[in-house]
Every structure is written in C-alpha cells, then in structure tokens.
C-alpha cells in the first residue's frame, strides 16, 4: 500500500482492509508515536468538514507530523480561480502526503493522477469517503469481535448516503446479511442490489422501522437530508418515521451496537445516548486510530 493513494474503498481489497484494522488496533494501544517526525502532511479542505479535518489533524499530531493546508476554499488560491490540478501540483512539492476534501465527485481520483505524493480522499462530493468506511469497519470489528456473518441494518437515506454504499461494498467481503430500512423514495439503488445479487449476499428491504431490529448485530443510522425532498411536508413525515428511540431497543440482541457517521439531527433520540448499545461517539474516536493506521501505511512507515 506504500505510496498508493486511497481514493475509493475499492482500492483496498479484503487483505488491505484487514491490515489497516490491525494497525488501527495497534495505534489504539499505542496512540502517541513520533513516526511522522520530519514529515509534512497537507490537509486541503476545499469545503469545510470540521469533524473529518480535526480527526485527521489529531491523527497527524499524535504521530508527531506537521500539518499545512487550508480549511475552506475561500482562504486558498482556489478563490483566485486556480485549477485543482495546479493546487495539487504545487502542494505536492511541499508535502509528503495530501489529505483532501472536495465538493466535486471524482476530484480525489483526478488529484491522485496529477500528484507526486499519495492522496487520501477525505470525501469527494457524494462519491466516496473511504476513511469513514474503514473506521466503520474498525468499530464493527471492535464491538462484535469479528466481521464475518453479521446481520447489518442500514436505516435512513439509503439512496444518496455515500457512507451506506461504501460500507455495503466493504462489508460484502465478510458474508453479511443486510436489512435496508428506508422511505420508498430513499431505497437502496438498483446497482447496489445487483452488486449483492452477483455475490449471492442476502438482503431484505423494509419501509417500516419496527421490531425486526431484534435480529440486528449492527444498526447503522443515517441522516435524512431535507434537500432530498421537494415537498417539505413529506420531509417532515419521513424524518420522523425513521427515528430510533430507547424503547425500541428493549428486545434487541445483547451484542447490538448502534453506529452513525454523525452529525445526527433527530434520527437517534437523545435517550439512546446513555444506552450501552449506543456506540456513535466512540465510533468517532476510532476514526483517529484508523486514520493513524491509514497515514502510516500509505507512507510505508510501519
């Protein structure tokens, strides 16, 4: 994986995924190691994403590296009309690795073609966010003790949610059963169902959020975004139909854990937060260890 950009979760096969998770476990036990001493990491956020950026910066700091970059396009040469290619070409002269977030889809792939240093995609529009997927996998493995043979429920916006699509692809390496719960308008797209069919992976679609979750090992909640609906009334109704509250968790499995890529709006009631099955805040912490693993592995330092 050395010097290989991480653009899409498809860049990492099963073995690489497992290697990153192993490394993440190592960094969780030994978070502060100065292996990035003397290395410069560029953090280019062409659109703001505080959570992802801080998680990356925390990972770099724990490893003793230094960070250059910008936090939104307005404070960079992009506002002067510089092309992405020129920005990447220039910054790759100053750094050993580039972490980038960009609103356009495919931008990370393009950057990886023009850059002299590896690129880590921290989100390209609605397309890919592979470090999120790897931290999701790490969270699943850590809470379940394994990745194989799990029953995974995905709830909310299954049509547009990139985290859902990448998670589905990555988990497909591990013989899962999927249950999809969403409004009919936000169903999982046909291409993803075809992908699962071709692999012989079982999945079930539901439009109601009911006690079927008693079978779940993982519930992955996602936010339903207002802009997906042309009718505001319909948005309000949908938003409230797929809310997880504490009472619903009563007859669920002991090992069940609830994940969410955050930020949440109202799709998980706050009364769930104190339930031992709520895992979304620890999930965010796992992001730091996972990103440490990805950076160290990409630079071939470990």
């Amino acid at each position, binding site marked *: 994986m050395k010097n290989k950009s991480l653009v*899409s979760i498809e860049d990492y096969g099963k073995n690489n995924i497992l290697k990153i998770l192993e490394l993440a476990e190592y960094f969780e036990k030994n978070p502060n190691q100065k292996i990035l001493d003397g290395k410069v990491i560029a953090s280019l956020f062409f659109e703001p994403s505080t959570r992802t950026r801080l998680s990356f910066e925390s990972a770099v700091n724990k490893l003793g590296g230094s960070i250059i970059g910008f936090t939104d396009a307005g404070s960079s040469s992009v506002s002067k009309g510089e*092309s*992405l*290619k020129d920005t990447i070409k220039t910054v790759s002269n100053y750094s050993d690795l580039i972490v980038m977030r960009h*609103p*356009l*889809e*495919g*931008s990370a*792939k*393009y950057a990886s073609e023009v850059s002299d240093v590896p690129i880590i995609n921290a989100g*390209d*529009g*609605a*397309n*890919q966010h592979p470090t999120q997927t790897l931290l999701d996998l790490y969270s699943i493995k850590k809470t379940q003790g394994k990745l194989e043979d799990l029953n995974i429920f995905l709830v909310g916006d299954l049509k547009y949610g990139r985290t859902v699509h990448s998670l589905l692809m990555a988990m497909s390496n591990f013989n899962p059963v999927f249950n999809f719960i969403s409004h009919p308008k936000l169903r999982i797209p046909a*291409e993803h169902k075809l992908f699962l069919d071709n692999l012989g992976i079982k999945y079930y679609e539901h439009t109601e959020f009911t006690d079927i979750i008693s079978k779940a090992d993982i519930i992955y909640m996602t936010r339903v975004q207002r802009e997906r609906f042309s009718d505001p009334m319909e948005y309000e109704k949908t938003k409230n139909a797929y809310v997880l509250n504490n009472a619903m968790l009563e007859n669920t499995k002991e090992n069940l854990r609830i994940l969410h890529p955050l930020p949440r709006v109202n799709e998980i009631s706050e009364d769930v937060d104190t339930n031992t099955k709520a895992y979304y805040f620890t999930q965010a912490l796992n992001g730091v260890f996972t990103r440490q693993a990805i950076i160290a592995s990409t630079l071939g330092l470990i």
Partner: protein
Amino acid sequence: MKDEQKLQVSAIRNGTVIDHIPAKNLFKVIKILGLVKMDKQVTFGTNLDSKKQGKKAIIKLSDKFFMDNEINRLILVAPEASLNIIKEYHVVEKKQVEVPDKITGISKCVNPKCITNHENVIPKFKVISKKDVALKCLYCEKITDEDNIDIIL
C-alpha cells in the same frame, strides 16, 4: 428491393461503406467521424428500411479507410454498425464495431458534479454493459447510459 437500394445510394469505387447506423443517430456518426471537415466524396442515405433496425442510415465514403480505434468511437451511437471496405467496386473486407472494455473521451460524464465536467480532464469510463451501452465513470463512479451519452468532439 435490392434495386431500389442501389438507386437510393450509388456505388463507390474505392472506400468504405458504413451500414446499419440507426437512422436517428446518423448526424452523430457524421460528427464523431469528423466527416464535416473531410474533403473526400461522402454520400449518405437515411430512413432506409431495415428488417433488423426499422429505419437505418448508410454512409459511403470514397477513398477513405478507417483505423479500428476511429471506428470503435461509434460504439456509443451505432453499436451494430458494419463496415464494408470497397476496392474496385468489390467488398474486400467486412468489419463490425467492437465495444471495448474501457473508453477514453468520446462522451461526457452524465454527472454535473463530476470533476471531468469542471476541470480540463478527459473523461474515462469502464464499459459495464455492451448491449445497452452503459459506462461507469472512472472518476465519480456514476453511470452514463445510452440515453445520456453526450458526445465530445
């Protein structure tokens, strides 16, 4: 019937006859092959009856021979097209358009938020369906199907 066809489009001595073009895509084929700028004789007929296609079009080009990669650019608009290479009024070779596994250029990506529609990047696709042509963008991973193909010249 054969005589009628002959009357509609006259024979050529040397060159290429492109047959089985869907009638609706004739002008796209002309654009893709750059025939507008060509100084050789070009004859075309369209809305000809075809058992296979309903209405087809045909192009006859005098003294013009194509490389395979030029012809394969037609896959998006005329996947069933066939080429007859003519020497001294006789068909000396027949070729079919071959759908490749990867395509560079030719069409734009359907996704308005794709980087290829914002920066000077040549679109690249993986062909995921050869029958009803469907292209997966190697950048944004979205799928451009037959109805959304937008030819770049």
